[in-house]
């Protein structure tokens, strides 16, 4: 294995071994604390533009299992401490390194991932580069910004997913970089899912006569997506709307709220989220921005909060049949504990639950 370097925007350099596809990469450096589920992480389109650090040191233990993919890899680079070249699992198809090579994702292993995580925690998210030679000039690294990434990961054309069992509802899924398990969670509950690109107009979406609209997760700064925000304005109140992650943030912006960038985000499968007046759930998360709950006073009601840092995790818009969450009820990777939110969405479409 060749020597590789991870060069941070602040000038710090970590030496390791090159893994994955040849070449270098530049991206926003983030970490995820999930101990398993690296396949779901690698194939989560919400990582577009980012270099992902796995805090758990042993990655690739069960190789690659294609049926566990959540989408097409959109991340820029991958950082692990130890990459397993002898995977073992009854479903394992091939080594993880092979996947990285196939997808053109360069990576680095053998680095002090814990120290990297501490750096990001203390200094906030920063850009980084994986390369074979340390560049003299860091300006390229510093100037990098994750922009227009939804366009990169949204589907090119609409597609229809048939329900498992008897069809009960039609849901239009606006795909900002949707994880496949959102679709699976809906089809499993008897929904026909029509996935449409993020560029789809509200009128077009409503023309499918959906019983409900699902606003998906996705990458990047929510405020950039002005077109999508405009469409959501036109959709909320018309039919039941359920938003996840970026969908949650875009809805907040559409309703007049504001978002902010978090110092280093929430990425992992152990984030506690308290439902106001209810219990606390362990959730799967992947986001760098958050909704400022106060900015929605009088419009939306904060229903979920992060039990660690108090950040906003969910909003319900009373009287508008619209609710959104920051975390991932579709899990993958992570706990399945909040899958009941899809049932709430179904109930709302059936008129059994009002938001």
């Amino acid at each position, binding site marked *: 294995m060749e020597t590789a370097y991870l060069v941070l925007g602040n000038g710090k350099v970590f030496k390791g071994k090159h893994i994955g596809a040849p070449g270098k990469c530049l991206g926003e450096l983030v970490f995820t604390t999930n101990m398993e589920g690296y396949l779901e992480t690698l194939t989560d389109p919400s990582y577009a533009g980012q270099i992902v650090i796995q805090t*758990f040191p042993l990655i690739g233990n069960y190789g690659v299992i294609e049926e566990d993919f959540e989408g097409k890899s959109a991340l820029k680079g991958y950082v692990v401490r130890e990459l397993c070249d002898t995977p*073992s699992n*009854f479903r394992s198809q091939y080594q993880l390194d092979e996947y990285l090579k196939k997808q053109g994702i360069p990576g680095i292993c053998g680095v002090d991932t*814990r120290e990297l995580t501490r750096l990001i925690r203390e200094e906030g998210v920063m850009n980084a580069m994986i390369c074979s030679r340390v560049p003299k000039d860091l300006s390229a690294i510093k100037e990098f910004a994750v922009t227009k990434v939804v366009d990169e990961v949204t589907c090119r054309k609409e597609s229809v997913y048939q329900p498992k069992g008897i069809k009960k509802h039609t849901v239009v899924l606006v795909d900002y970089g949707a994880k496949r398990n959102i679709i699976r969670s809906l089809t499993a509950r008897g929904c026909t899912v029509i996935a449409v690109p993020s560029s789809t107009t509200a009128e077009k979406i409503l023309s499918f006569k959906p019983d409900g609209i699902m606003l998906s997760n996705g990458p990047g700064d929510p405020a950039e997506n002005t077109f999508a925000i405009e469409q959501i304005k036109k959709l909320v109140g018309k039919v039941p709307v359920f938003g996840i992650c970026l969908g949650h943030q875009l809805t907040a912006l559409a309703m007049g709220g504001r978002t902010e960038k978090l110092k280093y985000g929430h990425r992992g499968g152990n984030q*506690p989220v*308290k439902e106001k007046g209810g219990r606390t759930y362990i959730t799967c998360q992947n986001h760098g921005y958050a909704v400022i709950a106060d900015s929605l006073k009088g419009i939306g009601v904060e229903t979920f909060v992060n*039990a660690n840092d108090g950040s906003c995790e969910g909003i319900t818009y009373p009287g508008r049949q619209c609710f959104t969450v920051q975390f991932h009820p579709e899990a993958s990777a992570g706990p399945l*504990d909040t899958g009941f939110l899809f049932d709430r969405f179904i109930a709302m479409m059936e008129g059994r639950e009002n938001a």
Partner: protein
Amino acid sequence: MPKDKSIRKVMVIGSGPIVIGQAAEFDYAGAQACRVLKAEGINVVLVNSNPATIMTDKAMADEIYLEPLNVETVTRIIKKERPDSLLAGLGGQTGLTIAMQLSQRGVLERYGVRLLGSDIEAIDKAEDRELFRNTMKAIGQPVVSSEIANTLDEAVKAARNIGYPVIVRPAFTLGGSGGGIANDEAELKAIAGTGLHMSPIHQILVEKSIAGWKEIEFETMRDSIGNTIAVCSMENLDPVGIHTGDSIVVAPALTLADKEYQMLRSASLNMITALGIVGGCNCQFALNPDSFEYAVIEVNPRVSRSSALASKATGYPIAKITTKIALGYTLDEIKNDITGKTCACFEPALDYVVVKFPKWPFDKFAGSSRKLGTQMKATGEVMAIGSSFEAALMKAVRGTENGFDTLNAPSLYDGPVMERLREQDDRRIFTVFEALKSGISVDKIHEITKIDRWFLDKIRNLADFELSVAGKKKLSKEEYIRAKHLGYTDKALQHICRAKKLPGYRFSYKMVDTCAAEFNAETPYFYSTCNEVCESRSFKRSGKQVILVLGSGPIRIGQGIEFDYSSVHCVWTLREMGYDVVIVNNNPETVSTDYDTADRLYFEPLTPEDVMNIIDVEKPIGVVVAFGGQTAIKLTQFLDKHGIPILGTSAEGIDLAEDRARFDKLLEKFAISRPKGMGVKTLQEAVQAAETLGYPVLLRPSYVIGGQNMTISWSDDQTRKYMKNILASGIENPVLVDKYMPGTELEVDVISDGTDVLIPGIMEHIERAGVHSGDSIAVYPPYNLSGTMLHKLCDRSTKLALALGTKGLVNIQYLIYENELYVIEVNPRASRTVPYISKVTGIPMVDIASRVMLGKKLKDMGYGTGLYRTPPCHAVKVPVFSFEKLNDANAILGPEMKSTGEVLGIGKTTAEALFKGLTAAGLTIPSKFNMESGVLLSVAEIDYQEILSIAEQFYDLGIKLYATPGTAETIKRQGIPVHSVSNATESEEIYSLMEQKKIHYLIYTGAVKDSTMGDFIAIHRRAMQLGIPCLTSLDTAGALIRIIASRYNLNNTELVDINHLQTV
């Protein structure tokens, strides 16, 4: 939901003596519980028969009862103390069982006591096989097909329905006692018979064997409003078939994809929700390695060994949070102590790998089967943390102190390695390593062992590395660094290659923080890694002088929880004195490895190199070796050689006590006698020495703990056999041959500051010399010691302590034979009896010893000097054995220690204390004997004379005498009526008498010869299964007679609150 204010006085039930399946983890859990309760201002009433625990310390509870843990006694304490609530989920299976009995008998209701945590219904649903299965069925959780059987016939029928192989699991037994896998009907009958007897409700489960599946565990928590979390997942390297307590376990699970992981995690949380668990709960699964098929193995609705491991593996304090939940708090209200900011309702993220390795007692029971199965055999365990699986495994292996620092171990049996791989024993991982080294493929090994290929491939990395450097005279920089990443010590490396000089390596230390560095934490809890950035070196320090305290490693026979007790107290005192205290230990079951016990905790093996690496970071002013048992003492010479100051008794003083020749000279100087003896190195020398001294002689290797390989020899034959065995394994130090004198043994713990000496107390053993002190019943104060002898003993102790330059504790063992006082042994460190004597005399022995080590004077401490006054009570320490788990082990008491734990009985008289002690140890003493009560006597010829008075006394008490022919003949001749019973080899008579409940006690000393040993083991095993006490020392029998005659029973003893003892 905030704390329930109606909870004001809580009874906490401990887990009693250390036995296999129930070790120090419950002291750790109980101590955490008591601290939480006290901090909440709740009055705590503690019951535990085990004195060697932190939880029975004065400061832990308001009222402390070192009383037998049975429902009668606990009921009496409830009646006396009137607690409003009971916390039982932290006292292991013992605590839970007593709580259930209290509930069934209506005691809780009668006295208005509320059970905190999971309620009786929840416990029942989890513990009762049928209720559990019904609950699982109701929520769609698959269980292994099985049937309940209450008789042997039912068991056979069940197995036919299910199909062989089947596993037999007795209901309500510890660590799966009495269970096993049966491959056919004959095997089933044997195992089911045992199981039915072992189960307190005579019920077994016959279950489809799923041996070979992955065994996965989740440690979960649930609160009263239904918040649920999975604190930690664990994967057993050894697939289903070996008890999890005997398995090598990793955390987190390493071979599961997210889909499998989440499937089992969700199953766990659904299960604890359906069961209505409130607090911590362990969920075990079997997962088919070739599909998503799984089955629930069992749940433990309480804090357990696994939860202690999970707590230490993640930093999440399960016992503490369980207690808070029991008080009414909900998970979302409780803060994560480690980050101080985040919420306890979360799931720890690990950024390292944890490996647990069991510590087995087979070194103590040569000849006993090392086969592992569904019945746990390990006495303790170590945990290791590393950045890679290989490094963590290597740390774990050397940390268990089995004499191996790598996976290279000589095989136990002959035969090709491929055959030996089939042996499911304690050496399997070493055999796997040997196989990999010899070129056998991972697939082949997987096929035989069913160990997941992932683990095998990692072990192969170690094998490949060793092969690549074997014999090399020089290692490249890359090779050396690779060795360090894989977890090799320099010493181990030098055994593999021939490099004389190695460059040395600077380790860095990372923090265990529950959150994989996501949040800032100040946990002073570290492990070594080969990463570059060291978090320990940059850790904020107080600037105070640093002292390093060495812990005692895994719990084993001869070195139990007592040493953790002492280590923890030393740490506390030194902190109080203003030092910055660092502890090193690798036992996850202990209080010492709580991250807030010391100022900093290093969870590392206690080997010279691992400790030196920590010293390099911490730069202590000195190291304390006196409280960590032989594990710590062993490091003294090494540390001294490297210029590291030893606090307390110097390395020189320690050597003086341990080196026989030097010690003999010292004794001569003071004209102190010791049994005549000599050191030998060959068979001929040994035989000659024995002849010179005259038989019987005591044979033992030097530098051992717990009398390992110690034996009494009565003949040349025995001496030859012993020497052959010992020499076969190679010896570095001479074998000691001593004249054996069957006198009275006394034991004394002494504290000295170099000028003065304080003797907190003297103990007299019930059993004569020849029975290891750890296996003897020890009585305080002495019951049979003359004033002159007492004076002499104090005088000798003082002289010896001063001559050895003792600064701190020293333990001296004496022998009185034909009115002459001999010294048998001196241990220049804290001994097993320190907690016991501290508790009954009220002298904080470790506290004083620690202060003395740092230069304080005994005179200024307020306890005076010389022999301390005797408090108004008698205390008796009774050993507890784990022969239920090691049922083929030789249970005859001798110079080699065999007990795993101990209990204390406290009373107004020796007899009362003895009664309580024996009862607490599990010996049943009926309050009334009927005409059918009987005792079986079978003794060796040398005991014929002595058995007569014992027989007579039993007879006078109205107990029917049975005896084997030789013994019977002797007794008959004396005119005492006795029923002669044929020997076990000749007929089944003994067994049928036992089964007919005609024999209540066995007195058996006739197993000194190899020819009769098999008989004894078989009889003993049956007796164990039937709950018939078997005494192998006539002195113990004498004590038994005394207490039967004393007419004490469970209802007429006085309950003693040791917290208020001194004011009596």
